[in-house]
């Protein structure tokens, strides 16, 4: 294939993609001239180029479409649903031809071009158009009244206006079964049946205006962009990684020379910017995937006789290109499931007192280093009893075991291969492939799938996708005098065990070590012993840290010798000779140039055999968390200071340190703690420090919290628990109280972090500049 044809194919594909998007939008706003102009442009471009390249079949089809669109553009015709359906069909056939050209360079055999052209020509005739429109609006009303029953009949009425009813377009002149609205949901048309029958009355004004300006800005953006090969971007990414490492070495080597410092700082900043830019270059907005959905939802809704309103939010959220590709399939599956199993047919919805038009919501948002994609519907939800029955029927689980499962655990069963609750296998779903595919695909790219469902209320499927595949946040741990990277995703908390505590806090059942974490036994895995089965000692006379991990529902503590800083690591694959070990998911180069193996928490759990014991524990733990979330109250750390209880907002707590009271030093009368040169102001309003002053070795507990941008410490005697606070109101006024909450049925004061006096610091700008830490 020559360069010109290839270029034409890419361009035409993009044109058709844009056209598809615009057509579904047009259904919503048939009067939007900018949309019509945009569609017209796409078809016109294809027609122009095909003529030039000699693709006769394409040219003829595009030409007919252009004529029809021309009339719509000039206002001679209204963009009625039959016209839109006709144009969508035209688009499908254009796509099929393009695919053919891509495959073998020929346009392929024309099968029903004639009928499509005839149909489009028929739609052009202004005399017939109003008739078709009438038939259609009548049809729309029939849908309102009797949902699906009348569809076949009215399709005939609509088809009668057309000379030769095309076979391929049997359900063609249907009313807009699905209407598409973009965020914000507040501006969506009122959910009355009439809104669907007359979509033109929907969002006029600001939103339509916004659509127009957006269309205008996309065209100008197209002129300032450039197509780049992804392989080249990957290569650039690799080289930038290399540059970052070289820079780190330069920084270390030149730190002593004041003349070089300025230069190396500059190098540092340029490298950081470069890395950022290359990463950005690989990012694409999720709208690239989302934009395919309105058409799919529209077609599926027609096929399944559902009425669905699609809402999309957060389309501008960006994700690495390869990940975006990877979520396309899971997302499609999830939407199919929502339409087929979730949203009920309109008559059923009405009978249940719901809006006959169901809502399907697609939402993307960034949360830290993850992008969350949510597919939620307000359909029937998942009946856990049906799940239980089906799982037993399909032999996925024994009846005894099924009886023991909690509701949440039952929901997880739908992710098993071969599971489907659909009574009948349909074209759309019900073959028992689906949710397991969703989960495997998402887990393959390091993501997670969560499902939440309320019977009768709807289902929410949440895909958590890492921002990029190549770079993950990890905690660097030390063991065997060597660094290992532990992905942060699996890490839930860290516990420090000092040598003198080790003998008492680590308990044993025969030779299985356990740690009592807030009253529950947590199985422990010693990394050192796992990696070096012979020669490592059972007794530990040095500090240890327990990393509490939650991998695939298995909860355990990994014991390591030391912790280094968290780092954003670049994942490098391992040679197949090392993959057999199974414990490592890759390797990485750390900021100091050292290599570190990336530990795979899931495999460690399996290898250590904690799988089964940990499972229920984890389920219970997550259930507790869920219960807490349901309460909607803020969580607090309950502490005891000098005999009194107080609450610290859990969201602000960074870590909890235990130390002898002598570590606390004083600046004037203000207590402070020096952490390797970082000074932490300590709050001692409760007088814990004063009480412990007699014995320099007396242990105190300091809760380190975040307050604005600074960190502060609170001296307490004990940390008691984590609990959810309940609101209190002032008697009489019913005003919410401030600074006090109801914790475990007793009124507890909330520590005022803002009240802790600032340390004397230099101006802010000086403090902000810390590029090495910011980068690595």
């Amino acid at each position: 294939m020559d360069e010109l044809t290839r270029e034409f194919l890419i361009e035409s594909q993009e044109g058709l993609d844009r056209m598809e998007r615009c057509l579904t939008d047009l259904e919503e706003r048939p009067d939007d001239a900018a949309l019509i102009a945009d569609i017209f442009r796409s078809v016109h471009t294809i027609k122009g180029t095909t003529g030039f390249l000699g693709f006769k079949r394409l040219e003829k089809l595009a030409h007919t479409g252009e004529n029809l669109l021309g009339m719509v553009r000039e206002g001679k015709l209204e963009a009625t649903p039959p016209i839109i359906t006709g144009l969508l069909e035209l688009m499908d056939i254009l796509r099929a031809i393009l695919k053919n050209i891509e495959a073998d360079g020929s346009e392929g055999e024309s099968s029903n071009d004639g009928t499509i052209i005839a149909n489009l020509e028929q739609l052009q005739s202004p005399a017939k158009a109003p008739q078709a429109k009438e038939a259609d609006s009548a049809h729309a009303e029939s849908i309102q009244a009797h949902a699906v029953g009348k569809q076949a009949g009215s399709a005939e009425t609509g088809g009668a206006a057309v000379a030769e009813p095309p076979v391929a377009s049997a359900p063609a002149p249907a009313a807009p079964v699905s209407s598409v609205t973009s965020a914000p949901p507040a501006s969506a048309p009122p959910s009355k049946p009439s809104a669907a029958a007359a979509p033109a009355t929907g969002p006029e004004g600001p939103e339509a205006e916004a659509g127009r300006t957006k269309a205008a800005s996309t065209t100008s953006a197209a002129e300032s962009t450039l197509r780049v090969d992804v392989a080249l971007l990957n290569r650039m990414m690799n080289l930038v990684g290399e540059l970052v490492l070289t820079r780190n070495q330069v920084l270390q080597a030149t730190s002593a020379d004041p003349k070089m410092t300025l230069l190396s700082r500059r190098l540092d900043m340029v490298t950081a910017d470069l890395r950022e830019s290359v990463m950005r270059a690989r990012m694409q907005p999720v709208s690239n995937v989302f934009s395919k959905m309105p058409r799919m939802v529209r077609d599926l809704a027609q096929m399944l006789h559902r009425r669905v309103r699609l809402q999309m939010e957060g389309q501008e959220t960006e994700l690495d290109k390869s990940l975006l590709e990877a979520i396309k399939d899971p997302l499609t599956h999830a939407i199919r499931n929502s339409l087929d199993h979730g949203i009920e047919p309109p008559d059923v919805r009405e009978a249940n007192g719901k809006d006959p038009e169901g809502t399907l919501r697609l939402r993307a948002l960034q949360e830290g280093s993850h992008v969350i994609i949510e597919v939620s519907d307000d359909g029937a939800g998942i009946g856990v009893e049906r799940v239980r029955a089906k799982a037993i029927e399909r032999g996925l689980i024994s009846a005894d075991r099924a009886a023991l499962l909690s509701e949440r655990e039952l929901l997880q069963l739908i992710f098993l291969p071969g599971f489907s609750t659909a009574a009948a296998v349909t074209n759309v779903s019900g073959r028992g492939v689906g949710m397991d595919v969703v989960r495997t695909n998402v887990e393959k790219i390091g993501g997670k799938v969560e499902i939440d469902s309320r019977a009768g209320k709807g289902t929410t499927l949440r895909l958590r996708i890492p921002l990029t595949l190549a770079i993950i946040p990890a905690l660097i741990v030390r063991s065997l005098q060597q660094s290992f990277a532990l992905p942060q995703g699996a890490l839930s908390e860290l516990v420090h065990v000092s040598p003198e505590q080790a003998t008492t806090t680590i308990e044993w059942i025969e030779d299985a070590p356990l740690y009592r974490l807030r009253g529950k036994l947590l199985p422990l895995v010693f990394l050192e012993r796992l990696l070096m089965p012979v020669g490592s000692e059972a007794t530990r006379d040095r500090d240890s840290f327990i990393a509490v991990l939650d991998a695939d529902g298995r909860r355990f503590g990994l014991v390591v010798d030391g912790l280094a800083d968290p780092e954003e690591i670049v994942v490098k694959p391992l040679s197949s000779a090392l993959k057999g070990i199974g414990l490592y998911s890759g390797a990485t180069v750390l900021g100091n140039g050292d290599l570190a193996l990336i530990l795979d928490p899931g495999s460690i759990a399996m290898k250590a055999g904690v799988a089964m014991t940990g499972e229920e524990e984890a389920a219970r733990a997550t259930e507790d968390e869920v219960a807490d979330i349901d309460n909607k109250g803020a969580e607090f750390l309950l502490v005891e200071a000098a005999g009194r209880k107080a609450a610290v907002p859990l969201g602000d707590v960074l870590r909890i340190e235990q130390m002898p009271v002598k570590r606390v030093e004083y600046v004037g009368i203000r207590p402070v703690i020096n952490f390797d040169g970082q000074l932490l102001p300590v709050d001692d309003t409760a007088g814990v420090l004063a009480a412990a002053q007699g014995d320099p070795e007396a242990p105190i507990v300091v809760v380190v919290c975040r307050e604005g941008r600074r960190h502060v410490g609170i001296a307490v005697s004990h940390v008691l628990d984590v609990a959810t606070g309940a609101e209190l109101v002032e008697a009489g006024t019913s005003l919410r109280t401030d600074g006090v909450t109801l914790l475990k049925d007793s009124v507890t004061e909330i520590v005022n972090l803002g009240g802790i006096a600032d340390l004397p610091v230099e101006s802010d700008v000086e403090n902000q500049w810390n590029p090495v830490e910011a980068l690595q």
Partner: protein
Amino acid sequence: MSNQPSNQSGATRRKDKAAALTEICSVRLGQSMYGVPISHILEIVGQARPQPVPLAPGFVGGLVHYRGDVLTAVSLRHLLKMPSREGTQDILVLEAPGGYFGLLVDSVGEVLTLSSSEFEANPSTLDEARRDIIAGAYKLQNALLIMLDPERLDPVRLGVAEAA
């Protein structure tokens, strides 16, 4: 020259006596000298400290960082059943069908240009394990240069062999 080695990888195992010249990098391991055809060497990294991989098969000498990639380094000492050695080692970065890998040696010597007429295949008395990675030897004036077969040192291949 008309009889330049046509198939470079097979060059070291040529049995014909035609005087083709091959450039060979000599490496030292303990008291012995070994050779690797230079056509297989991408780069030599000196004074490297490979990162050990716990639980890895014995022939894996560790991981090394090479141009943004992480290479698996094969310990030649282990393959030749020599005791391992403390301290830094030199690494030859070699090309294999599955990607690059490193070969850990005590030190890298000079590059020699040798004639294939000086080459002889393995003696039948050589034990099985060594015969697997040694291609033969060049007769130097006062010593033998034992030729290694780089393709047989590929960790992927060694891993399969170990598993079998």
